[in-house]
């Protein structure tokens, strides 16, 4: 039992880490909190499942690639059309409202295009594996494997490629970057597009567990914020530390608390950290 719970915890931990990762990227690059990120996750799932796999019967692997491309372009468009104006507004409040409205709009569009009925993909990573007498859902293994591979890919992207390095420069210091000849605007858009593609990966990974519905990403999106704060806001590795902490603790909690409180754990952690150690586990102590 403990092992199963741990594996679930680690799998969800990776999901939360990825969520934290994608919105931290946008925060570092554009100083904007993307409250619509959970809808980016949702719409990726709808496009992948609704349009391609189910609608057109496309091979899942091909569908993944196509969806990634579409969402990348989508992210870039949103970056230019909506995030840019919002970033230039005088107060945080408008940016928050703006991204929340964007979330609403996306949810409504999705409902109108694909209909309000939740659905899922038959036989899509829905089986279980038997490891040494313990039954573990395949999806958890898939999530862990895919996440690890993806995170390694992201590390390589940032450390080894020119695009990745440029994105890191832009996140750290826009003025210096532009003085080095980096087209800051372009790389901000790239960063947002990359963040959107991370949302796509998340969206596809959570289909078996959460089904395809308009609020499939809501809880995950919020817990992703919790993960980020717990681990250390604004610090990319903080998302992994925080994500694991939240994922494992909330799954372990069902061993000691009634299962209905599982969701509450993440938010209690969030508030505790905000009050006691807002810089998170990896963050520096305040001066």
């Amino acid at each position: 039992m403990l092992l199963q719970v741990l594996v679930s915890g680690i799998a969800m931990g990776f999901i939360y880490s990825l969520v934290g990762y994608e919105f931290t990227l946008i925060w570092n690059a554009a100083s904007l909190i993307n409250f619509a990120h959970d809808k980016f996750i949702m719409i990726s799932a709808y496009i992948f499942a609704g349009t391609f796999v189910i609608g057109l019967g496309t091979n899942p692997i091909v569908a993944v690639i196509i969806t990634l491309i579409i969402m990348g372009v989508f992210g870039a468009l949103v970056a230019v059309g909506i995030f840019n104006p919002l970033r230039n507004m005088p107060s945080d409040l408008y940016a928050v409202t703006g991204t929340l409205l964007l979330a609403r709009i996306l949810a409504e569009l999705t409902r109108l295009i694909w209909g309000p009925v939740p659905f899922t993909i038959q036989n899509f990573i829905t089986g279980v594996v038997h490891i040494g007498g313990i039954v573990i859902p395949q999806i958890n293994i898939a999530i862990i494997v895919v996440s690890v591979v993806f995170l390694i890919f992201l590390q390589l992207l940032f450390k080894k490629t020119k695009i990745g390095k440029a994105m890191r420069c832009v996140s750290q210091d826009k003025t210096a970057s532009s003085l080095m000849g980096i087209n800051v605007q372009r790389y901000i858009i790239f960063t947002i597009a990359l963040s959107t593609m991370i949302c796509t990966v998340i969206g596809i990974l959570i289909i078996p567990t959460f089904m395809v519905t308009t609020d499939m990403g809501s809880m995950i999106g919020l817990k992703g914020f919790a993960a980020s704060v717990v681990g250390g806001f604004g610090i990319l590795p903080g998302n992994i530390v925080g994500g694991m902490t939240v994922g494992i603790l909330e799954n372990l909690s069902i061993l000691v608390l009634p299962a209905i409180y599982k969701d509450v754990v993440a938010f209690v952690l969030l508030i505790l950290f905000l009050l006691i150690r807002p810089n998170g586990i990896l963050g520096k102590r305040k001066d």
Partner: protein
Amino acid sequence: MSNVHDNVENSLVKNEYTKSKYIVFLVLVILASVLPFFTTNTYYIMLFDQILVNIIVVLGFNFITGLTGQMNLGTAGTVAIGAYITGLLTVRCNISPWIALLLAIPAGYLIGKGLGYPSLRLKGFYLALTTIGFTVIVQLMVTNLSDLTGGTQGVQRIPGFNLFGISISTNESFYYFLLVCVIIAVLISIKIIYSKWGRAFKAIRDNIDAVEACGIDVADIKIKAFTLASIYGCIGGALFANLSGYINPGTFGIDMSFNFLIMLMVGGIGSIGGSILGAIIVTMLPESLRFLQDYYWLIFSIIVLIFVIFQPNGLVELFNKIYKAVKSKLLKKKGGDDIVDHSKVK
């Protein structure tokens, strides 16, 4: 040489302009009072009731986000607590709805203190997260403590009010009761905003360092703002429970907090008129855009988004701009070129 009494509308001090606002308010109250005579449709009356309850919540919300500029997405949690106090006490313990309504005040006070303290150390996004966390936790607890709260079934058959034995739970009489509540809420808001308190709230939004340099205890003022907002919110929640007769946890999620935020922003942050206007417009929306059928929510969201980008300070600011433009045109006609543009003169 311009008259010293020009531009009095900029001031948060009682003057001729605030008197004219009272007159506008009186006119609105009269219009509102005769409204029920124009329709016997129960649905519309309930809609008006809902608008009145929303006005109260947004008026409170205005103190903390509109004036003091602190991010707050916890309105749904506050409303939920007010609603459940009324719902549970009246249905389970047979306590009079009047007492339950009065209990919303200390409840709001406690919530205000509870949310106020984090706001002292957290700003912007972190504060938004804390208030979101508050709403989510309240919703989760209410859903899961089913023995206490009825869980997803909610609380049913919440009784209406009785005044000296006469029931005021029929639609028209409840409408007038709510109208009285709104009038009281607005008058209190006016008193608070057009006074040193309103100035202190706005000053905090404009420049916290300067406020401290003026000897004001910012922590104290922030908590006062949160407390006011929460008391209004709890009362709104209690009235909402009476209005609907039935409450369940699903209603009180972040979407509700967000609705109130939209009301505040559309109407105009920081102004009483804006809070009222925003509450009316957003609540009436499903009706007025009915012709768009399935698309109305989408269209509205897009309109509001465009609004936020181009007219972020809401409709009231737009009206103010028009008022000032008209006023200066009229004055130009009267006094030739007496108008002095102060930004160009030493």
